[in-house]
C-alpha cells in the first residue's frame, strides 16, 4: 500500500503537469466551449434582446385616420419606437433606403371600419433588406412582431368585450394523456418530456459510460506508454515494487483525473446548454421534466439501475484491462492513443446501432446472446430492464464483471513475465544483446 501511494502521487503530479493531458482534457474543451458560447450564446442573446427592444424608426402611412389606426400608432409608440409619419406611399422607397428606418406600415383606409364590423383588417408592411446578416434581418422583422403583438392584444380585448373566456377561445379543445408503462397508468402532461426521459436513459447513460471509459482508457494507456517513451520502464521493472500495485496506482490516478475531467465537462456543458436554454426560453426547466425522471426511475427500479451500474463498472474495468494489455506492448504515447481508439470505436458503433434497433421482438435466445457480448450488452441493458427480462439483465451484469476479472487476470499474468518487456506491437525493435 505504501508503494501504491508513492506511485499514485507521482502519477498525479506527472499527469497534472503534462501539457498534453492538460491541453487535451481541459484547455481545448474550455476554449471550444468558450468560443461556442461567445458565438452562439452571446450573439443569440444580443439578437433576442434586439428583437424585443423597441428601438428604431418605423414609418407609418395612415390612410385610415380612424380610431383603430390611431390606436395602433400609439401602441407602436408605447413600445419605444420612433414614428415617422408619411402622407402617402410615393416617397416610401426613398424613405426606406435610409438604413435607420426599420420598416414602413401602410394602414389602409378601411382599417377601422373592418375592425369595428368584426372583419379581418390588413396592414401592408414594406421593408428594405440592405444586408443578409442575421441581426439586420431580425431588425427588419420587428414590424411584423409589433403587428402580431397588437393583434393578440386586440383579440383578447374583443373577446372580453363579448364576455367570453380568452383561454377557451384560444384552445377550445385540449388533452390530458395517460401512458401505461409496465402495467402502471401514469398521467402525463407532456409526452415530449417523457420521450426525452427515455432517450436520456437509453442513450445518455450508456453515452456517459462510454465517455468515461474513453477517458480512462486514454489516460491509463498513455500513462503506461509514457514509462516507455521516457525510458523509465526498464528501471521500473527492476525496482522493488509489486508490478500489479504499480499498474493499479496508474489506473487509480487515471480514474481520479478522468472523473475530474468528466465533472469539468459536465459542468461546462450544463452551463453552456443552460445559457442557451435561458435565452430561447423565458421559463426555467419545467418541473414536469423532473416529474418524468422521477416516474422513469420508479419504473426502472433501483435493482435495475443497480444492475446497470454494476455492468458499467464491469465494462469500464474490461476496457481498462484491454487498454493495459495493449499499452504494455507499444513503444510510445502516440501508438498507445492509436490503439485505444481501436477499442473505443466499436463501442461507439454499437452505441449508435442500439439507438435504432428494437430488440424487444427478438427471440429470447437472441437476447441472451446479445446480453453475453461485451459492449453490446451494456447498450441494450436499459431495454432489458424496461421489459423486465431478469435473465438478460443478470447475464449482462455478470458477464461484464466476469470479462473484467478475466482480462485483468490476463493482464496481471503478462505483467509478471518478461513478455511485458520483450513483446512489441506495430514495430519490432532489434533485440539488443
Amino acid at each position: 500500500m505504501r508503494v501504491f501511494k508513492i506511485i499514485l502521487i507521482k502519477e498525479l503530479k506527472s499527469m497534472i503537469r503534462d501539457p498534453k493531458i492538460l491541453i487535451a482534457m481541459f484547455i481545448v474543451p474550455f476554449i471550444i466551449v468558450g468560443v461556442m458560447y461567445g458565438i452562439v450564446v452571446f450573439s443569440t442573446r444580443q439578437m433576442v434582446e434586439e428583437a424585443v427592444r423597441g428601438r428604431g424608426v418605423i414609418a407609418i402611412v395612415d390612410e385610415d385616420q380612424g380610431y383603430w389606426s390611431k390606436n395602433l400608432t400609439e401602441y407602436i409608440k408605447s413600445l419605444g419606437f420612433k414614428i415617422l409619419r408619411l402622407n402617402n406611399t410615393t416617397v416610401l422607397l426613398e424613405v426606406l433606403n435610409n438604413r435607420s428606418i426599420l420598416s414602413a406600415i401602410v394602414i389602409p383606409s378601411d382599417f377601422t371600419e373592418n375592425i369595428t364590423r368584426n372583419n379581418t383588417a390588413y396592414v401592408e408592411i414594406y421593408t428594405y433588406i440592405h444586408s443578409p446578416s442575421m441581426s439586420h434581418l431580425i431588425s427588419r422583422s420587428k414590424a411584423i412582431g409589433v403587428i402580431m403583438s397588437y393583434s393578440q392584444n386586440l383579440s383578447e380585448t374583443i373577446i372580453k368585450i363579448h364576455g367570453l373566456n380568452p383561454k377557451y377561445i384560444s384552445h377550445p379543445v385540449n388533452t390530458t394523456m395517460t401512458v401505461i408503462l409496465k402495467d402502471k397508468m401514469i398521467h402525463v402532461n407532456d409526452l415530449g418530456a417523457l420521450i426525452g426521459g427515455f432517450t436520456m436513459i437509453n442513450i445518455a447513460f450508456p453515452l456517459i459510460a462510454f465517455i468515461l471509459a474513453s477517458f480512462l482508457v486514454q489516460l491509463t494507456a498513455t500513462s503506461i506508454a509514457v514509462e516507455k517513451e521516457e525510458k523509465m520502464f526498464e528501471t521500473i521493472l527492476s525496482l522493488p515494487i509489486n508490478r500489479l500495485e504499480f499498474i493499479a496506482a496508474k489506473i487509480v490516478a487515471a480514474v481520479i483525473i478522468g472523473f475530474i475531467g468528466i465533472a469539468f465537462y459536465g459542468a461546462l456543458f450544463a452551463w453552456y446548454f443552460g445559457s442557451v436554454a435561458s435565452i430561447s426560453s423565458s421559463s426555467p426547466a419545467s418541473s414536469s421534466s423532473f416529474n418524468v425522471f422521477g416516474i422513469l426511475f420508479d419504473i426502472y427500479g433501483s435493482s435495475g439501475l443497480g444492475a446497470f451500474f454494476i455492468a458499467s463498472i464491469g465494462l469500464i474495468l474490461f476496457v481498462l484491462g484491454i487498454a493495459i494489455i495493449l499499452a504494455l506492448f507499444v513503444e510510445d504515447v502516440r501508438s498507445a492513443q492509436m490503439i485505444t481508439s481501436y477499442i473505443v470505436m466499436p463501442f461507439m458503433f454499437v452505441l449508435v446501432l442500439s439507438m435504432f434497433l428494437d430488440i424487444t421482438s427478438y427471440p429470447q435466445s437472441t437476447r441472451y446472446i446479445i446480453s453475453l457480448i461485451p459492449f453490446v450488452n451494456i447498450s441494450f441493458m436499459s431495454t432489458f430492464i424496461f421489459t423486465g427480462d431478469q435473465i438478460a439483465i443478470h447475464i449482462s451484469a455478470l458477464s461484464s464483471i466476469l470479462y473484467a476479472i478475466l482480462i485483468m487476470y490476463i493482464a496481471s499474468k503478462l505483467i509478471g513475465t518478461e513478455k511485458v518487456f520483450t513483446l512489441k506491437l506495430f514495430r519490432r525493435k532489434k533485440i539488443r544483446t
Partner: protein
Amino acid sequence: MDLLVVNDLVKIYPGNVEALRGISFKVEPGEVYGLIGPNGAGKTTTLRIIATILEPTHGEVYVDGYSVVDQPDEVRRRISYLPEEAGAYKYLTGLEFLEFIAKIYTDDPRLRSEMIRDALAISGLGERIKDKIRTYSKGMLRRLLVAKTLMVKPKLALLDEPTAGLDVLNAQRIRYIIKEYAKKHGIAVLLSSHNMLEVEYLCDRIGILYRGKLIVEGSPKKLIEEYKVVNLEELFTKLIGEQYESF
C-alpha cells in the same frame, strides 16, 4: 561468500536467437566487475537477467543467495540498475525524482534524507536539482541517474554503459564517482562498457564476452601481463579482433 553467482547462463530469444551460451562468473562484495565485448555479445542481456527483467532460458543466477527466477522480489531489494538508455520522468524535478526512488526503497525519513544528500553530492547538480528534468542536458540527466542508482546503497549496482554518449569531463566525473562510492560503501558493481580506458580504470576484474560466451576473465593487470599486451584495447583486439572482422 560471492554476492553474485552466474552459473551456465543461457538465453535464447524467440526466433532461436542465442544471446547467451552458457556463461559463468562470480562477483564478490565490494568488487567492480566489468563485462566488455562488441555489440551483440550479450552484455545487456546478462545485466537484464540479473536485474530480473528477462528470464533465463537455462542456468542459475543468484544475488546475495537469492535466485532471480524464484525470488525476484528479494533480488530487487538488493540491486540497483542503470540501463544504458535510461530516462527519468521529465515533468518531475530532479529532487522529486530522487525522492520518488528513495521512498520506494525505504519508508524511514532519516534514511531517505541521507540518500538524497548522497545523491546531491554524486550528481553535483546544485540548485538545478529543483528544476524539471526536461530542462536537463544529457550529461546532467546521466549524473542524476547514476546518483539515483548509487544513493540507495545497493549490494549490487548494475550499470549498463554508465558513461555512454557523455563528453570527456562528464564521463570522467561519473567514473570517479562510481569508483569512490563503491569503495566507500562496499557496493559490488557489475558494469558493461565499450570503453577500455574506463574498464581499466574502474574494474577489479573483467570478463570479455563474445557471441554469448565468456572467453576470458581476470584482473586487467593480470590479463595484460598474461597476454603480453600494452593495454586492454590491444588485448580485446588480439582476442576477438580477427574473428569479429570475419563475422
